[in-house]
């Protein structure tokens, strides 16, 4: 995987939204990421941390305030939303389907807009092929969205995204609105499609077990920043950032034999304290670590300098003073309860 082609690269991306009162909301604060061809980048983090903002920037629905996004080596520019190489699939499939339009029409519309399959017969064949990709039968051609189950509607949304032969799918919480029994189906479908069509995925979800199942690399976001990233097993089994550790420890494991130990890899439970902060002026000052107000491990330095992402393993990086120092084997100060 390493050294593969990079199909998507974010370089110190910032996004600000004007706010009626006071300074702008800083939804993204210097996000750098990359996605390699035919792999999956999972993005996790609590609501409001900027995941959806990042996904909108990736597909060009909005532009970054600062920083740069490159898709297939080319910078994203205005109007990129119509670009074919990257497509966004939303959480609620029904919100992205026109209730008055049949499945067939929803798919042929996209083909027509992009001047794909100009002949009627070609279009018909392509619609069948797309339905086949998402395991729907030609019977579903004439269905309207209200005649579809949630899982079927999500398949149609994916088929429509695939119609333009993209390289990358950005999946923003694609299974959150689906019933548990349908989620497995959706994950199997995504994994199969990735293999068949060599797709690259950005998979956004707050469900860690699903992100783990599909991702090669996981990025953990907190308040508009990536605070930890690396191979999925490193990030979820040996999380190093106190926020990732709190997150991993909070997930209820579907196995009654494993009581919530609060222990993650012997690193100790790092229960988060306090409220979720919101992005924007109320957020922490730019001087210190954004996690400081909730961090039980905070030290003096955390208030003075914002930690930068640093390597703690091959491809595993974390933005935390204490985690970086621990990983580098320096002695801990007395007051750190690790």
């Amino acid at each position, binding site marked *: 995987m390493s050294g593969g082609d990079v199909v998507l690269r974010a370089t110190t991306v910032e996004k600000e939204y004007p706010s009626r009162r006071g300074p702008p909301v800083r939804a993204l604060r210097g996000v750098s990421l990359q996605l390699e061809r035919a792999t999956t980048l999972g993005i996790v983090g*609590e*609501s*409001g941390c900027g995941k959806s903002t990042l996904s909108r920037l990736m597909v060009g629905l909005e532009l970054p305030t600062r920083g740069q996004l490159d898709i297939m080596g080319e910078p994203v520019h205005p109007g990129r939303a119509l670009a074919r190489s990257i497509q966004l699939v939303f959480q609620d499939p029904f919100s992205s389907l026109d209730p008055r339009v049949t499945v067939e029409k929803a798919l042929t519309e996209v083909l027509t807009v992009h001047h794909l399959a100009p002949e009627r017969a070609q279009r018909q064949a392509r619609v069948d092929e797309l339905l086949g990709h998402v395991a729907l039968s030609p019977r579903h051609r004439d269905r309207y969205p209200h005649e579809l*189950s949630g899982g079927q509607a999500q398949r149609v949304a994916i088929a429509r995204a695939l119609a333009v032969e993209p390289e990358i799918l950005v999946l923003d919480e694609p299974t959150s609105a689906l*019933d*548990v*029994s349908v*989620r*497995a*189906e959706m*994950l*199997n479908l995504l*994994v199969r499609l990735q293999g068949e069509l060599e797709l690259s995925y950005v998979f956004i979800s*707050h469900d*860690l*077990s*699903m992100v*783990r*199942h*599909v991702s090669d690399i996981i990025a953990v976001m907190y308040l508009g920043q990536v605070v930890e990233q690396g191979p*999925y097993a490193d990030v979820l089994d040996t999380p190093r950032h106190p926020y990732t550790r*709190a*997150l991993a*420890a*909070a*997930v*209820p*494991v*579907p*196995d*009654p*034999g494993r*009581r*919530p130990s609060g222990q993650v890899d012997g690193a100790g439970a790092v229960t*988060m*304290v*306090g*409220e*979720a902060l*919101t992005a924007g002026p109320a957020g922490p000052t730019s001087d210190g670590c954004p996690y400081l107000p909730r961090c039980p491990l905070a030290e003096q330095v955390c208030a003075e300098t914002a930690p930068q992402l640093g390597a703690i393993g091959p491809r595993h990086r974390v933005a935390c003073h204490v985690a970086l120092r621990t990983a580098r084997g320096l002695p801990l100060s007395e007051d750190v309860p690790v």
Partner: protein
Amino acid sequence: MTGGTGVTGGTGVTGGAVHAEEEQPLLVLRDVRIGLHERRGPVEIVRGVDLGVMAHEKVGIVGESGSGKSLTVLSVLRLLPDPPIRLLGGTVEYAGRDLTTMDERALASVRGAQISMIYQDPMTSLNPLLRVSTQIVETLTAHTTPKHDARRRCSEVLHQVGLTDPDRVAHAFPHELSGGMLQRVMIAMALAVSPRILIADEPTTALDVTIQRQILDLVGELHETTGMAVVWVTHDLGVIAQFVDRVVVMYAGRIVERATTEELFVRPVHPYTVALLGTLPREGAAHRSPLTQIGGQPPDPSRLGKGCPYRQRCPVAFDRCSEEEPPLLPAANGGVAACWRAEE
């Protein structure tokens, strides 16, 4: 009540020799049937649910969406959206009295003070026009708590649900608070009255796992210290595994399996339960190895026909399954399951 087929069947607590007085369930639903009124007559959506909840226990309800979980729990406090949904039959006994026929005044005192409900959408129980403190204090004083005690209790519970600035939250109007904060306010309001039973309908589904964990810890702690019974509806099998003592699984308007949490995960009996557990990414399995799928879809309640409602999706269905709907039968895991193969 025989074997494991009674309302609380399939538990270590109530199985075997029981001490009659101590083991009376606090809440008992018997043959609860709920219908959707359509022009052609009622369609039965919840088709005879029997469920007992003991004091000091946590019961989880899981199942396919649309299987009737919400309607079942809403029927307890007569909160069904009538019309078009109505109780068709059955009883709901709380502390020996039938809530389905109790007069409104008596019911109101049960509702506010003994059985509390929390929902996925906090605005279901909050008034957008009143400050948080006003709402909590009103709930308390309605049930004979003196006003100044109510004020103290209000900040106490807001603090307990993990809000760091309870005073600010108390003075806020609902629209000034984030979704996660509102959820905790609703939970604080439900817990303020120290109910004997807390009924929760997917209250943490929309929350981040870290906040969910705080709330489960808090409810678990209150359960431990006050003996408050808990009925928790969720589709999260992790929450079920970690939080409740006993589980009921619903499918097509019925309970199809009831067992202790341990047994359900180790030895699920009903084929639907087996399939549901199989859909989870398994630890130790190769990365991205295919997950088990449940093919097909749940049946339309107006077209159930005879036979087991799971038969079209069931990999082990046999002749009898399309003839007769199975009742809850004693199962090999010590619980009960509505499956002709339950005892195998």
